[in-house]
Each structure stands twice: as C-alpha cells, then as structure tokens.
C-alpha cells in the first residue's frame, strides 16, 4: 500500500521553493502519490524522508534473482492476488531436490534430468529451473562434494543449498560464489551467522520459521544484519497450511504493504507419491509460491506442471494468439480436408483438438484476426470473405493441396457464397457451428 499524497507531503520540506517544477510541495506530493514524479526532483528532501518514501514505493514483493546468465530465474515483484486483475509477473520456479546421500552416479543422473528437462510448448521453452541440494547426511564434507559435482556438471543451473549447518553451508556455497545461489538457510538459532555467509557469497538467504509471526520477526532481524535478498518459508507443508500461509503472506504484502513478509515464498512439495506431489505443486503454482521443490521430475509430471504454470501466468488482458499459418493435423496428404478458423488461441486449441479427436488428418488454416473468436472477428469485419480469399491465395496452399475445397465455420455460413465468388476455382463447404460437431462432420466426409 503506497503512501497517500498528504502522508508524503508531511515528509517534504514544506518551503514551496518550486525547484521541483511544481508550484507547491503539496502539488509535488500529489504527483508522487500518483507515481507521476520522481523524488529526485526535490533537492532539499531529507535523508530520513528519502528512506521512508523509498521503502513505501518499493514493490510489495521484493524482486530476487536466482542464478546468473540466461538461466537465471526472477522471482517476486507480484502486484495482485488474482490473475484476472493483472498478469502474474514472474512464473514460479521448479527445483529438483538432490540429496547429498546419493551416489555420484545418481546425482549425475539427476543433474542430467534437470539439464535435459526443457520442452517447447506453444512457442515457449519450459524447464526445471533449479537444483535444490539438501544436506540429508548432516555432514559438511558430503554436501561440499555434491555441490562441487553439481557446479562442474551444470554450471549454468541456479542452485539452492539446503542446510542449517554453518560449516556445511559455507563449504557448499563456495563453488557458486558470484553465481547468485540461494542458501536455505537461516532460522532463529543461526540467523546472524547465516546472514554473514549469505553476505560473503552474495547469496540470497532462505529464511525459515514456525508460522508467520515468527517469520516476520526473523526477516526483520536478518534485515538488520544488512541482508535484504530473502525468500521465506513459514514451515507450511500440508496443502491446507500452504494455501493458508501463502494467501496471508501475499495479502499482507500487497494489501497492507507489510514489508517483513514482502519476499518470494519457497514451498517444499516433496511427497512419496509423485502424482500427489504434482497436485501439491499445482496448489503452489496457483496460490503464490515462487519456488517449488520437487523430489522427482518424471516427464509426464513436468509437462503437466509446466503447462499449468504457463496457463496461469499468461496475461489475462491480452487474448492469446497463435501464429497465422496453415497447420497440419495428423498425416495430412494433399487430398486431406482444409478448414479455416481464426487465431484466438482458445478457438485454435478447441478446433485442433476436435480435429485430432476425429482421427481424420486435416489442414487447419488459422487466420490472423487479432486474437478474436470466429463470431467476434466476423462482427468486427476481420473475418470477411475478401480477407479469407486473400489469405488463402497468399498462403501458397494451392500448391500444397490437390483439391479446392474450403470448410468454413458454421457460424459464418453466410459467407460461403461471397468466398466462392472471391476465391476463384474454389468450392466452399459450411462446417458445423460448434467445434464438437467436427468429428462427426469429418468422419462423414471421409467415408
């Protein structure tokens, strides 16, 4: 919650000297409150006022970077509780837990799984973002050995070192000096010493406490040691607690501008049962976790979680669009039917899904209508006979298919005559109104 104009005014010099370019200090304060001016314009503002105003205007959830280079993960900076209000900013990171009790071969295998986890989905590259090395052995030497192995095999992958043991933390974080690792971390007993380790290695500090009250106290304490890059853990492990604590943390940060909890949240989702773990992670993705630790990363599970994260972190205000082109669905021969629709991604997904479902290989011409659905695009004059004709002609499809038969959506049956007129040599067939009529329609044509 930012300060109001009047609250800001109280902190200004109140001399109305106009050096800021505004007639009065109050006018300047009002502009500041609306974020239409910068405090730097006033040369006479006190250090104290600068600090208070700086804190109040900082983002409610502190931005944190994990790792460096193009594999670095950004977290925090969230501004809302619900995605329909505004886009969720930084997609939560998935990290695979690697225990230091595993053999070198097993650790190597897990590192490779992380490195090879990347999947392309609708044009985005999605992957397991980080490795969380845990000090299961309780032994500093073992943790260090495993850390060195990870550092040499996957130098790009961001790393989370999980131990509360000071010596172990120091030894294991050393190979990642200057690579923005995360040390998880600090608790009420080791806070000052761990803060020093984090400072020495420029690491982010994972802070854990029992419940939100203790956690707030602890982050304040650590901040007093000059460490501000933190991620927080309230010790919630059951789904109900994760949902409750994450909700309260996000609300406190955003609605109350409560700084002690204005940090990204780390969630430990590990379970014996991999599917159960995927569902706990699902709750974390939906409800405000910034890092989710997993114990296993099977391919089926990755695909589901990556897709979920991609879905929930899209911008709700921008209709998702797919690229204008002619998509092949199944083993489409030159004789395969050709259908046309608009490039609203939901339309595309539903139509292509029903074509898949029909098991009849087809070509689907997806026309750029600025992400509008068929009826809306038609009403807006973007899905018209002449535009359809132009798109078909320029697409080069006439060299690709043997027939000259175009299936148009049933909702725009009215266009069939004029498309035939404008698209010489082509016959237009009116398809079903709803996509779920496609399987029957296509199967009937195929026989």
């Amino acid at each position: 919650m930012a300060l109001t104009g009047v609250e800001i005014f109280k902190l200004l010099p109140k001399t109305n000297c106009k050096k800021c370019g505004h007639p009065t200090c109050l006018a300047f304060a009002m502009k500041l409150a609306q974020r239409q001016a910068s405090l730097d314009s006033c040369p006479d503002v006190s250090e104290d006022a600068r600090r208070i105003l700086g804190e109040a205007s900082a983002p409610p959830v502190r931005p944190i970077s994990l790792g460096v280079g193009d594999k670095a993960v950004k977290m925090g900076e969230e501004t809302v509780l619900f995605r329909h209000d505004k886009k969720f900013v930084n997609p939560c990171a998935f990290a695979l837990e690697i225990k230091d009790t595993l053999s070198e071969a097993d650790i190597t295998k897990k590192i490779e799984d992380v490195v090879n986890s990347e999947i392309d989905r609708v044009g985005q590259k999605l992957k397991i973002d980080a490795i969380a090395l845990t000090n299961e052995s309780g032994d500093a030497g073992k943790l260090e050995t495993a850390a060195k192995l990870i550092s040499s095999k996957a130098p790009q992958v961001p790393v989370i070192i999980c131990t509360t043991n000071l010596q172990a933390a120091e030894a294991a974080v050393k190979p990642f000096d200057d690579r923005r690792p995360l040390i998880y971390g600090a608790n009420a007993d080791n806070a000052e010493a761990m803060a020093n380790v984090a400072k020495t290695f420029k690491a982010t500090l994972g802070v854990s406490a029992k419940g939100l009250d203790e956690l707030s106290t602890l982050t304040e304490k650590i901040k007093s040691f000059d460490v501000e890059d933190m991620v927080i853990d309230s010790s919630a492990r059951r789904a109900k607690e994760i949902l409750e604590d994450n909700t309260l943390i996000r609300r406190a940060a955003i609605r109350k501008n409560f700084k002690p909890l204005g940090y990204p949240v780390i969630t430990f989702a590990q379970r014996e049962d991999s599917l159960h773990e995927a569902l706990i992670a699902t709750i974390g993705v939906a409800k405000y976790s910034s890092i989710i630790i997993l114990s296993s990363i099977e391919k089926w599970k990755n695909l589901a979680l990556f897709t979920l994260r991609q879905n929930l972190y899209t911008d709700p205000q921008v209709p998702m669009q797919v690229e204008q082109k002619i998509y092949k669905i199944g083993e489409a021969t030159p004789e395969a039917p050709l259908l046309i629709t608009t490039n609203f991604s939901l339309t595309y997904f539903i139509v292509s899904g029903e074509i898949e479902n029909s098991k009849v290989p087809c070509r689907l011409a997806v026309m750029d209508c600025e992400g509008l659905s068929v009826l809306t695009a038609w009403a807006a004059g973007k899905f018209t006979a002449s535009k359809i004709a132009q798109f078909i002609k320029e697409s080069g499809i006439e060299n690709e298919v043997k027939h000259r038969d175009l299936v148009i959506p049933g909702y725009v049956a009215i266009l069939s005559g004029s498309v035939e007129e404008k698209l010489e040599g082509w016959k237009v067939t009116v398809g079903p109104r709803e996509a779920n009529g496609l399987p029957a329609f296509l199967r009937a044509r195929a026989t």
Partner: protein
Amino acid sequence: MAFTPPKETHAGKVYAVTIGSGEGAVTFGGENVLPFNTFEGASPHRPVIAYEIQDVLPSDWPENVQKPYEGVSGDPATWARFCQNTLKAKAIALRLVGTHPDRENRSPEDAAKTVRDVLAALNVPLIILGSNHVEKDAPVLIAAAEAAKDRNCIIGKAQEGNYKTITAAAMANNHKLIAMSELDINLSKQLNILITQMGFDKERLITDPMCSALGYGLEYTYSVMERIRLAALAQNDLTMQPPMLGDVGMYVWKIKETQAPESELPQWGSTEERGIAWEATTATALLVAGAELLIMRHPMAVEAVEKVIEELV
C-alpha cells in the same frame, strides 16, 4: 514487527446443495470463504467428485480411460454399480451421449429407460447430462427428468438456447439444475437470472462456467470461476451464489496430451500417467479456483484428487 493476519470475512455465502436421498445423499457448497480458506470462515462441506458414465459403450474414450471399466461399461446400470460399490463413488454422472443425432441418435424413451435402470442400481445421487446438442437435449432431458422424478437428481445442462424446457422439466420433477454458459461471468449471471425468473429456486442451481482442460484454455475457466466466487462472497451477488461445476473428464480426455503415445512423443513421458496427471491437475486447479462439484473419469485421477482434498480441508 508483530504480524496480524489480514483475515477477510464476507457478506455473501455459497448455497449448500444436497442431492440424492437417504444415506447416499451428499451436500456440497455452503462456504462463506474463498476455496479452502477455512482459517477465516466456514466451509462446511467438501467438494464432491462424480464418476462419469454414459449410455453407450465408451468407444470414444481413449483406451487408457476405457480400461478401468472393461467388462462393466457395456451396460450403464452395471457400470454405475461398479463405480458405486467398487470405486466407492459418492455420486454418478450419466451422460446420455448416445442420444446425439450424430451418434447413435437414441430416442428420449431410450434415455428414460437408461435413467430408470441406472437409478434402480444406485443408492448414491445421480447427475443426468444430455449430449450437449442444444435441440436434442430438450426432449431427452424432459424424458430423463420424468423418469427420475422425486429422486433429487441434477439435470443438465440448461444453456441459453434450451433453458426454458430443461428448467421446466427440472422444476416439475424436483431436481437440481446445471446452468451452463461459455466462459464469461456476465453470461453465467444472465442465464442464472433468466432461469430464476421462470420461478426456479436459485438455491437449486449449479453454475457451469464451462470447463477447459489444462493447456487448452484452463486459465479462462480458472479466472471466470475466481471472479464468480468473488462476486458471490465479496459483493454478495445472489445470482452468483450457486456452487460451481467443473466437468473435467470430458474436456481432458479428448486432447492430445491424454492420448499421444510415448513412442511418438518421448519427451512427454508415459501416456497413462500423463493422462491421469492431466485430469487430476485440471481438477485440482479448478477446486482451488472455486469448483465444488467435479465430474471425472479415471479412477486413479479421482483417487489422487480425493487425497489432495483430504489434505486441504
């Protein structure tokens, strides 16, 4: 700095809806908080998962979700009893997909007979769904609603194009009703208003804002559900207070990710586990968004979602 939990209480409340009768009856809805936010209010009933069955062989379902019903899915009553007795289903959703004109085109009388057979086999509540053919669903659901008279079923789905007949049928035979519109909070609100203007009690309604599968528009359903639930609670909008349905199975088991063989797409991993995870993930996301009633297909996905509900309440 001391932490005061920023708890929120709401003026509005979701209606509790009870379906079925006797020992098998179940209730869902009734909460005055956002999904599972029990730390700041009451959430007296758990979400309910209904097993989906249909009036014809599920030859249109992918093999991996046909398999668990091998040997029972040839007869709807046997299938329903299997779900109830062996899988411990708390409710059954019978989809009369065989009545679709492009499918077997079964008659309303056939549909009514199936409904009677299934009801005779069950103690748990029944949800009766048409084939989602706006014109054909009207006579089919009239016949089905009569066949199930006074059994306190859910009839669905009433849509803009057919809500009058279907609402009348549900009203005349004492059933609950699903009102479905397509991914738009205003359309949902409008349909609920139209239906209640016919004299249908709004406390007997279930809103279906239309499901979409993970990867195929899930975020639209997710956000419409969140907005409907916020309207119900924070704005105390009475027309948005019926509980919500996530018709998950049907949407999930027709997309590529639940069917494509691993041999073709090795980077996607095991087809069977992928399909189950897809259904369970979609369902869990919708629960967190506000669904109180789910319709699902794969027993292992249902089991996994029940397990997560157990951990959420």
